[in-house]
């Protein structure tokens, strides 16, 4: 069984792209959340092995969602995948509990490398 991943991004294109990359490498995308609030709810229900998290999203943003998910599960593995690479946001996300920070646009290998590191092959 592939490890189970929850993808969070408001952009359909980005969810499809991440899903393709992950499934091609044997991971199972168990859910696609379109904002932070949805991601938190889906985390509770799906208990995925890893979450990818955008930052700028309508409703609840990605950093608030990381904080909420960490309250539910302090061991949650979350990787930020965002177009906003500002130092203050990287620091804030890591302090909130994110394990890695990928800036868009990314090469597929960058995503896989990060997921491998956190979940093992």
């Amino acid at each position, binding site marked *: 069984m592939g490890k189970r991943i929850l993808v969070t991004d408001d952009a*359909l294109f980005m969810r499809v792209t991440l899903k393709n990359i992950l499934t091609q490498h044997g991971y199972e995308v168990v859910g696609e959340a379109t904002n932070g609030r949805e991601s938190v709810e889906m985390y509770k229900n799906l208990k995925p092995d890893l979450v990818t998290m955008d930052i700028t999203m309508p409703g609840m943003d990605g950093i608030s969602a990381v904080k909420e998910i960490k309250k539910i599960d302090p061991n949650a593995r979350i990787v930020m995948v965002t177009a906003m690479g*500002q130092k203050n946001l990287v620091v804030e996300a890591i302090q909130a509990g994110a394990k890695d920070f990928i800036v868009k646009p990314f090469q597929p290998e960058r995503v896989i490398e990060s997921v491998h590191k956190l979940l093992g092959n």
Partner: protein
Amino acid sequence: MMRVEYINPFVSAAYSVLQTVLGIEPEKGQLAMRPGVFTTQQCSIVMGVTGKVEGSVIYGMTLATADKIASHMIGQPIRTFDALAASAIAELGNMITGNAASLLSEKGYTCQISPPSIIRGSNVKITTVNTPALVVPILLGDFGFIEINVSLQERK
């Protein structure tokens, strides 16, 4: 007052993002000033910027260019400009603006961006109230070109 230094981060970001996404070497066209009212291209990505600098950034292109870029990003030719194609084009605006916001922040102009909107249709008049736009075309070989309209001012 619209300052030229606000546009450079967008040009740099557009270069690196388009290079990565399209796999080409973009070229910069002639920088020009535009009045506060201008007519859009056939397809526009509209982004809001808030923070120490605020205003809007509009990426204009022809429908043919939008179709070619979306097809390349999705990895197969698009038959109609559907939700996935619109999302790909919107994401392009998001990535360029997000990367530019990071560069602006490094210069001390910390700012955030808002989710993109797409406007399709010719002869749409856009008014960037009180702030003229600086415009620079980025030439993309066979893809065509994207025109970046930056209309930002420092928050008082």
